[in-house]
């Protein structure tokens, strides 16, 4: 009964979404507010119904309703309570419900915020959002029905993918999906602007904060994904350039480009066409990401499943891209830029270059991700494009971006006078060069590492110069130091939020550089009592313990880590799940600001007399998470409502 209710709710929601999309569009075209109001009600109805769907599926998980196929595949009697809830979105069908629910939520908030404020655009925004929602509801009702029954009803289910049994898995998809679905809002406004022909700056002003919100969640999702990868997947890294990771990274890159180029349009009324294109591209890439994860076209560790669903997503992607880009071409005349500039040495140029590099990076990642397909289509030969390639080609692009990160915020608009350049960059450049010399003198041999660190110092110095200059200006006005600094952050929250984000990126850069350049690892087989040494650490194997957990069997090794004195006992494990072909690694680590000791258990003798262990000393990885925290705080600061204008 419950599952049928869920299916019915999805079908009614689909009908409502379709009606709402049509009603809002008709209302806008014929000037009948009643229809728009009806669409608004439809959107509310969709939200209620999708919430119900979500709740019913969760309920089916909680009561172990194995007559529902999705429940039977993704849970079993041993699945702990907590993971029965997160398991709801652990696989394809449930993840799409979560996605649709978030989209419905965003639509609701858009209605609440903008129904009064964006008269011309608003009905069309509603149409676009409800259309996108209708597509996902179509997927739920036709391609991936979460409430499909299973006969005969099995006595026990198969169980959740063990890799998903982690706290990171509650937050990672939620954040990532909030980012992905959040992009729909600026996209809807962009399309509304194109449809109505009001391609001025209104839509940019209205969606600015929405874009930062989506960007914030995308960043958070990527960071938690990295954290999960490092702490759970057990390969000692945080980013594998897997197709699915790339799929989440590309919209992040293009959204970052958009956040910057928007400033040029706000300030200088230029780049209208470019900004619209960027939003369309970003939204297209989020759809591409869902397509990639769910179509099975490109093999990936994260891939959900294969099946007809890929065709659905590709068709929708085609529809969206062709429609949106055709609208763009149609409005070309209204969009042609009337840009003017006094000098090539100006902030506009810096932002344009920043956009070129970000889009080039996104394109590089995209091309690398689909290149195996291209190679197979053209040559008939399967090739792989993996981490070594992506690292090699992207590092120069990212270093150049970091350089621009220092230049962009301080160089003057329109024309940078020699005086502006000197005042802004003399010190940072000097400090950066000095840092490069110092790092070389300290014996850092990797040129890339020296360059990355020196650039980091340079950019940090530019931020310091700007902040101290602005603070001094306020001090001269008679403010005291701390209120002056706080006031700056609060009153110019967008500018200084941006600086904090930049600072976060610098810290992440530090972590990435350190882990790439200085991490060491070894793999060895130890008899009980024997010890291995690496980078000043001594790791002694003390034996194995086996335990029976609620849904798996766990063999853990005990390893005493010491460097002169005993630091800790690490227990990396292998977890044997009945439903999995091979054991899942359970890593153990000792985290630190300078370095992490990271152990992965390999093969072992049954009697516990010996075990193979992979021992890694990963340098500066913690700074990636610290930088991530700083970055998200900065984004939050930028999201805060403006205080500049009287409320």
């Amino acid at each position, binding site marked *: 009964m419950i599952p049928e209710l869920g299916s019915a709710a999805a079908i009614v929601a689909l009908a409502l979404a379709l009606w709402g999309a049509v009603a809002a569009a008709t209302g806008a075209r014929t000037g009948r507010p009643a229809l728009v109001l009806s669409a608004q009600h439809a959107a509310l109805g969709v939200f209620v119904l999708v919430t119900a769907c979500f709740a019913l599926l969760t309920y089916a998980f909680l009561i172990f309703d194995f007559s529902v196929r999705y429940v039977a595949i993704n849970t079993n009697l041993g699945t702990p309570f907590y993971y029965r809830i997160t398991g709801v979105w652990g696989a394809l069908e449930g993840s799409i419900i979560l996605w649709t629910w978030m989209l419905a939520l965003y639509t609701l908030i858009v209605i609440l915020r903008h129904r009064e404020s964006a008269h011309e655009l608003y009905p069309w925004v509603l149409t676009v959002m409800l259309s996108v929602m209708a597509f996902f509801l179509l997927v739920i009702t036709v391609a991936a029905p979460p409430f499909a029954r299973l006969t005969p009803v099995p006595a026990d289910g198969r169980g959740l993918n063990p890799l998903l049994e982690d706290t990171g898995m509650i937050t990672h998809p939620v954040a990532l999906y909030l980012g992905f679905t959040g992009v729909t809002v600026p996209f809807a406004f962009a399309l509304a602007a194109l449809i109505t022909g009001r391609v001025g700056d209104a839509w940019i002003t209205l969606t600015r904060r929405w874009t930062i919100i989506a960007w914030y969640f995308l960043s958070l999702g990527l960071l938690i994904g990295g954290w999960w990868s490092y702490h759970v997947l057990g390969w000692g890294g945080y980013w594998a350039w897997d197709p699915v990771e790339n799929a989440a990274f590309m919209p992040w890159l293009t959204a970052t480009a958009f956040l910057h180029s928007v400033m040029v349009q706000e300030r200088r009324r230029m780049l209208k066409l470019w900004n619209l294109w960027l939003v369309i591209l970003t939204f297209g890439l989020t759809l591409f990401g869902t397509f990639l994860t769910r179509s099975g076209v490109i093999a990936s560790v994260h891939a959900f499943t294969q099946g007809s669903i890929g065709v659905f997503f590709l068709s929708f992607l085609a529809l969206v891209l062709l429609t949106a*880009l055709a609208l763009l071409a149609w409005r070309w005349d209204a969009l*042609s830029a009337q840009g003017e500039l006094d000098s090539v040495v100006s902030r506009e140029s810096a932002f344009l270059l920043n956009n070129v590099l970000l889009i080039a990076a996104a394109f590089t990642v995209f091309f690398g991700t689909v290149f195996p*397909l291209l190679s197979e289509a053209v040559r008939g030969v399967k090739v792989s494009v993996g981490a070594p390639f992506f690292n090699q080609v992207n590092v120069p692009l990212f270093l150049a971006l970091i350089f621009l990160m220092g230049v962009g915020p301080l160089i003057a608009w329109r024309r940078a006078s020699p005086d502006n350049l000197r005042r802004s960059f003399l010190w940072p450049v000097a400090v950066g060069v000095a840092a490069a010399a110092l790092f070389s003198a300290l014996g850092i041999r990797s040129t890339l590492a020296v360059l990355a660190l020196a650039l980091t110092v340079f950019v940090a110095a530019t931020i310091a110069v700007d902040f101290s200059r602005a603070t001094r200006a306020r001090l001269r006005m008679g403010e005291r130091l701390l209120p002056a600094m706080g006031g700056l952050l609060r009153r110019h929250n967008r500018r200084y939020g941006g600086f904090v984000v930049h600072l976060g990126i610098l810290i992440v850069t530090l972590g990435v550089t350190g882990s790439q350049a200085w991490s060491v690892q070894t793999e060895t087989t130890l008899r009980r009592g024997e010890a291995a040494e690496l980078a000043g650490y001594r790791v002694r194997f003390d034996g194995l313990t086996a335990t029976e957990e609620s849904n798996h069997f766990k063999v853990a090794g005990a390893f005493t880590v010491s460097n002169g004195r005993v630091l800790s006992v690490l227990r990396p494990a292998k977890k044997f799940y009945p439903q999995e072909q091979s054991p899942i690694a359970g890593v153990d680590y000792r985290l630190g600001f300078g370095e992490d000791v990271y152990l992965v258990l390999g093969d072992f003798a049954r009697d516990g007399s010996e075990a193979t262990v992979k021992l890694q000393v990963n340098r500066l990885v913690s700074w990636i998470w610290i930088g991530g925290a700083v970055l998200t705080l900065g984004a939050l600061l930028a999201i805060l409502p403006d205080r500049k204008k009287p409320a």
Partner: protein
Amino acid sequence: MTPRLLRWLIPLSAVPVLALLAYGFRVNPRDIPSPLVGRPASAFALQTLEGAPLALEAQRGKVVVLNFWASWCYPACYEEAPVLERNWRAYRDRGVVVIGVDIQDKLEAAQKFTRDFGLSFPNARDTTGKVSVDYGVYGVPETFFIDRRGRIRAKHVGAVTDEAFRLNVEKLLSETTG
């Protein structure tokens, strides 16, 4: 400034990308063609699950069906085990030998597997993974059909069916008798 028609290149630029992605539906990313087909099969000398020596060289002159499996490979290996046993019984007198190679497995689990299915053809363990790598195995089950001159002639990925077994074996049997 821009010719009117040129602007329509913007939406058109999406078409090749979409076409490439659509092409993706026609290929299976997990199906990687083996470069070994047509090449001589690597020799190996392993021990059977019971501890007897087993060498590929000793089977020269016979058609060899070399099957890589593991007890944890469910369901595919469980589906194909009866198929292999059935066909081995049917063809053993016509100069066909089936050899199973158990990879990345525990001895007891593997022994239980062969016992449960009553497998009577020789099964060996590849404890070091060397034979798996020599044959470019990337998952189980995979099955190689080796002709009488010791060349790999076909590779079958996934559970072997009666039809696939017969088709490949009959072809190799017919070759040198004619």
